[in-house]
C-alpha cells in the first residue's frame, strides 16, 4: 500500500500553504471557467488571459484540498508566459501522468515541480482532485479560443 509520503511531498504542501497566482482577472479581457469536483463539492475558477499566442496571465480562485490547490498553483507557474501550444503540451502531459486518456502521441515534456504529483496516481480517488484545475483550464482555453 502506498504511504502518505507518496502523496504529501514537501513541494506539494509548500504550494498548498502559499499558493501562487491566487486571485482573479478582469473578464474581459480575460476569460473565466468554473470547475467542480462533485465528490467533495470543491469549486475552482481559472482566469485566463491569452494574448495572441501567449498565455499572458492566469489566476485561480475557489477552494479545495491540498492536492487540488497545489496542483492549481503549480499549473499556473507551469503555463504562465508560455505559448498556447506549449500550454497544451503541458496539459496533455499532465493528464497522461495522471493516467487519463489523451488523443495523439505522448511527447517529451518536462513537468518540473508538477512531477511531485505523480504519487497521486497511487490514490485513484484523488486523481480528480489533481486534475480539477487542469480540466477547468482546458475549458478556459476553449472559451478563449486558444
Amino acid at each position, binding site marked *: *500500500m502506498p*504511504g*502518505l509520503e507518496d*502523496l*504529501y511531498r514537501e513541494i506539494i*504542501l509548500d504550494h498548498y*500553504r502559499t499558493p501562487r497566482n491566487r486571485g482573479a482577472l478582469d473578464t474581459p479581457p480575460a476569460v473565466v471557467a468554473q470547475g467542480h469536483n462533485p*465528490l*467533495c*463539492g*470543491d*469549486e475552482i475558477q481559472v482566469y485566463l488571459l491569452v494574448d495572441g499566442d501567449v498565455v499572458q496571465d492566469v489566476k485561480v480562485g475557489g*477552494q*479545495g*484540498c*491540498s*492536492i487540488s490547490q497545489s496542483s492549481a498553483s503549480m499549473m499556473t507557474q507551469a503555463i504562465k508566459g508560455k505559448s498556447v501550444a506549449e500550454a497544451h503540451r503541458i496539459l496533455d502531459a499532465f493528464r497522461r501522468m495522471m493516467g487519463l486518456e489523451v488523443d495523439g502521441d505522448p511527447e517529451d515534456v518536462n513537468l518540473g515541480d508538477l512531477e511531485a504529483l505523480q504519487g497521486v496516481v497511487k*490514490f485513484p480517488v*484523488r486523481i480528480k*482532485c489533481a486534475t480539477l484545475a487542469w480540466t477547468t483550464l482546458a475549458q478556459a482555453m476553449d472559451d478563449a479560443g486558444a
Partner: protein
Amino acid sequence: MGLSAATIKEDFPILSRTIDGRPLVYLDSANSTHKPRQVIDAMANFMRNSYAPVNRSSYRLAAESNDFYEGARSRVQAFINARKAHEVIFTKNATEALNLIVQSWGRANLSAGDVVLLTHMEHHANIVPWQMLQAEKGFTIRWVPLTDDGQLDLTDLDRLLDGAKVFSFTAMSNVLGTITPVRRLTDAAHAAGALAIVDGCQYVPHHATDVHALGADFLAFSSHKLCGPTGVGVLWGHESLLDAMPPFLGGGNMISDVRLDGFDTAELPSKFEAGTPPIIEVVGLGAAVDYLDSIGMAAIRQHEMDLTGYALRTLKERFGDDIRIYGPDNVEVRGATLSFDFRGIHPHDVSQVLDQTNVCVRAGHHCAKPLMRILGTPATTRASFYIYNDEHDADALADALDSATDIFGF
C-alpha cells in the same frame, strides 16, 4: 441489556480484515453498513437451496421461494409496526421510494400554486425528486430553516405549513446527526392538512420504529444502511393512500390485465413492484431485520447514545477549539453521526490521513449540498458509528486526527 460491540464485531467478517496489518476502523455506517454473516449466509443459502421466481410460478420450489419473499415482507412489517403487510413495498433503495411518492402521489396531486415543505437538512434524495416535478408542475417549495446548533428551527412552522399539501422531512440528518421531532412535525403537518412523509434512512437502522406512533403517512428507508444488502429499499405507506395512487413503473406483476388498448392495475403490494423484484435481497433484508431484532433496537439506541457521548467528550477534550463538531451536543436529540471541521484542514486531506490507519470516514458534501452552503463549507469530514463500533474506534479516530495535525498543522 447492554450491547457488546466486541461480540457483535465477530458477526461481521469484514471487520476482521486487516489492511497493512491493521484492522478496519469503519466509521462510515451512515453511508452504508457492513453485513453480518447471518445476512451473507441467508442470501447464499437461499440461492443454494430455495431460489426460484416469485409471484408467477406454481411448483413447490417457487412456492417455497415465495414464502421466503413474503415472509421477509411480514418481518419488515413487524419491524416498523405497520398494520398490513401489503403496505410494505420493496423498491431498489430509499431514493426510489421517495421518487415513487413524488412521481405517483405528487404528479397526481400537485399543481401550480401548491406548496411542498422540505427542510434545509434534507438529503438530495428528498430534494431533487421534488425539484424535478416542480419543473413540470410549477408548485412552490418552502424550507424549514435551522437553528445555530443544527436543529430544525420550528418558530415559523405553522406559517410555513400554511397551505402546504405535503411536508417531507428526514427523521435524522445524515450530516448533523440531528434527530428531528417527528411526531411533532407529523402532527403539525396534519393540523395544516398536509401529508407527512418521513425519510427514515438514518432513523430506522438506529431506533425502534413505529409508523403509527410517528404519525407518518409514508416512510422510506434502505436495507443497506441496516446491515442488509444493497439493491432493496422500503416504502411504507397507508393502505388508503397507496390504493388511491396511480402506478409508478409499468410491467409484469403490477397489472391485473393488459390489453392492446390499456391495462388494469394489480392490488397492493404488486401494484408498485413492477418486474422481477429483488428476491434475494429481500431475503437478506429479512435476515438483517431479524439480526437487529435479536440485538434489540432499544439496546442499539442506548449503545449509540453512550458512544456518541464518549466520542463528543473525547474529541473536545483532546482537540478543544481545533475541532468544530456540527449539530447538537445533547445525545437525546442526535445520533452517532459526527460531522466536523478539524483545524480548517480540507476534509479530503483529513480522511486521507485517517485512512492510513484504516480509519474510514467520509469526506464530502454527503449528498446535502444545500445544507453545506448553509453551514458555509463545501464539505465536512463525517465519522458515523454503528453497533459494531465502540470506544476504541472513537479513540482511534482521535489518534488519527493527531497525525493530521502533524502533516497539516501549519
